[in-house]
């Protein structure tokens, strides 16, 4: 991953901090190897390679993670769909790329649909050749939670695990002060829009600014609606504070996918602190001032 990943640990001495951080980093690497679609031997690659064929046996961790994804799919009424990654074949988020039309999107949309995936407690089968599972929408968040859990179990009382802005905080600094987490300005690089105080829990952000394509003054971001194949509209960014990074990440992604009004009422219904920048630049800060 090109983005900044970091583990910071408060420990009595440097060697203790190093060994704690090494544990966390090893756990992140384990999960990346297991669920990367760039590695032929990963669980994801095995499932995708068998699309349209026989069921693939999965371990308990993967099955539970897919159960979680299933809950997101249901809660988002189908917006959060781990089979929507095939849309990447039509969308190229790079300068000069063109906006795909219905002709290109239609065959891909036919290969999307988590509800069609056949699952038993220990197997997964994608029913159509060409269907794909993509852990991109939750694998990193899960890695953050696992790394934080490993640190906690190893006795760390104050630490932060940050994978490209999605992070978990394990308690305040030793002096009791919270970690100050900067929220990236969605339109100005290197500018923080706010500094959110976080002592525990996780923070995840979905935004339209990381990968996008601009055409005719319209920004097309990489968060794609699995029903239309088109980018989500309504938010520049959504940051959610939740008990776990997985929950924070799916909560913010679902808000992006729902669009401005439905997204805001989704966020309100969660009763979690959040910080959102709407399409027109208006900030909704429900972080410091709760409902």
């Amino acid at each position, binding site marked *: 991953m090109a983005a900044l990943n970091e583990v910071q640990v408060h420990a009595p001495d440097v060697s203790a901090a190093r060994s704690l951080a090494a544990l966390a980093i090893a756990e992140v690497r384990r999960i990346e190897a297991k669920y990367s679609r760039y590695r032929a031997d990963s669980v994801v690659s095995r499932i995708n390679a068998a699309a349209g064929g026989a069921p693939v046996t999965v371990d308990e*961790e993967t099955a*539970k*993670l897919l*159960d*979680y994804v299933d*809950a*997101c799919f*249901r*809660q988002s*009424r*189908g917006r959060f769909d781990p089979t929507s990654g095939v849309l990447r074949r039509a969308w190229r988020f790079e300068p000069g790329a063109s906006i795909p039309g219905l002709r290109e999107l239609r065959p891909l949309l036919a290969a999307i649909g988590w509800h069609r995936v056949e699952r038993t407690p220990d197997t997964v089968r994608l029913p159509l050749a060409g269907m794909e599972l993509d852990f991109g929408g939750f694998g990193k968040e*899960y890695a953050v*939670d*696992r790394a*934080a*859990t490993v640190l*906690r179990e190893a006795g760390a009382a104050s630490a932060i695990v940050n994978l490209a802005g999605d992070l*978990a*905080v394990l308690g*305040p600094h030793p002096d*009791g*002060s*919270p970690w100050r987490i900067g929220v990236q300005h969605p339109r100005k690089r290197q500018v923080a829009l*706010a*500094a*959110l*105080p*976080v*002592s*525990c*829990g*996780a923070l995840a952000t979905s935004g339209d600014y990381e990968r996008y394509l601009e055409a005719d003054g319209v920004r097309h971001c990489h968060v794609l609606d699995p029903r239309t194949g088109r980018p989500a509209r309504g938010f520049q960014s959504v940051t959610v*504070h*939740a*008990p*776990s990074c*997985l*929950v*924070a990440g*799916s*909560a913010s992604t679902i808000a992006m996918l*729902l*669009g401005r*009004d*439905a997204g*805001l*009422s*989704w966020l*309100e*219904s*969660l*009763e*979690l*602190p959040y910080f959102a920048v709407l399409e027109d630049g*208006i900030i909704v*800060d429900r*972080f*410091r001032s*709760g*409902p």
Partner: protein
Amino acid sequence: MAATEDAEEGRRPRAPLAALTQAALALPIVLASARAGAAQVGEVGFAALGYKERGLIKVTEPVLWGRLQVDDVWEFEASGALDIVTGASPELVTNLPGTPVQSVTGASINDRRRTAQLRAKRRFGDFSLSVSRAVSNEEDYHSHAFAIQGEADLDQHRTTLAIGLGKSNDRVGSSIDPALDERRDTREYLAGVTQVLSPLAVVQSTLTVTRGKGWFNDPYKSTLTFYPDEILPVLFADRRPDHRNAVAWLTRYRRHFPGASGTLQADYRLFRDDWGIRAHTLELAWQQDLGERWSIRPALRYYTQGAADFYSPVVPRPRPEVLSSDQRLGAFGGLSPSLRLVLRLENGLTVEGTAGYVHDAASLRLGGGGSEAFTTLRAVYGILSLSRAF
């Protein structure tokens, strides 16, 4: 809202967070609390208040407060204030000009009031207990109060119940009568409920019962009445019942409108006591967020009250046992608009400025029937406060 669109995909279950959290709990990860408030470990602040009642009284009130949260379990709060009162005070109601009027004596009041309050709160899971102690001292009035309050969070913090008990032991003196040294003791019972109605709306209702006994007379107030058929007027010192039992019921409603970035704040208070006073207060305010840093809050408060049974601007014949011409016990109404501006800076500093106007008059009483002797009161006030979270 658009949340109800495309119902064909099925209804969204009632508690999305519970569904996601339950699924996440099946994974080998540890979930932490995500209360944003828990991150703030303390706050210190300073406020100054100025009040000017056209020529009558001016109060400046520097207040200092601090709040400290320890381990998410203990919370301590302390505040101190100094009131400086200068100017004259109304003392006498006389019918010498024909109709009763409030007359201001030349005696000027200069007083300093010092107050301090301490509160400690301990949280035991969904239950919390707080104790507080308050002391207030001025030349002619000393007050010591103690209170204990318990709160219980129910239904995943959607409902909070509170019960409380307080007592205040006061001593009343007088700068014009050094011999005056009387007691006033008050007990207070409180029961309240806070209910989250929706993610955007919350309502809080609190019933407070107070039972007071002791000296309620105001040593600075008296009534001077001339009768057409008598040569000498009658001077009657303020004399009130030696007990006062009151019930106050306060209901507050808050509704946030995310689309408009604003919050509606509506408060209603009903008050009645065994002196015969019935009062209603309604306050409506709108807090509008202007971007991330600024917010503005215009508010309008309306107050109306009926007179106490023993209120009279003239001394009736035969002379009653209890009588007060203090116009605060009369029938009147009041309108008070105010405007507050809040600036929140990135370093945790919050600056708040409030300006308000008070207009009390007999004619503003709901349904008419205000006390004729009520002297219209017009006052302006301003509050400036600085606070910093750390």
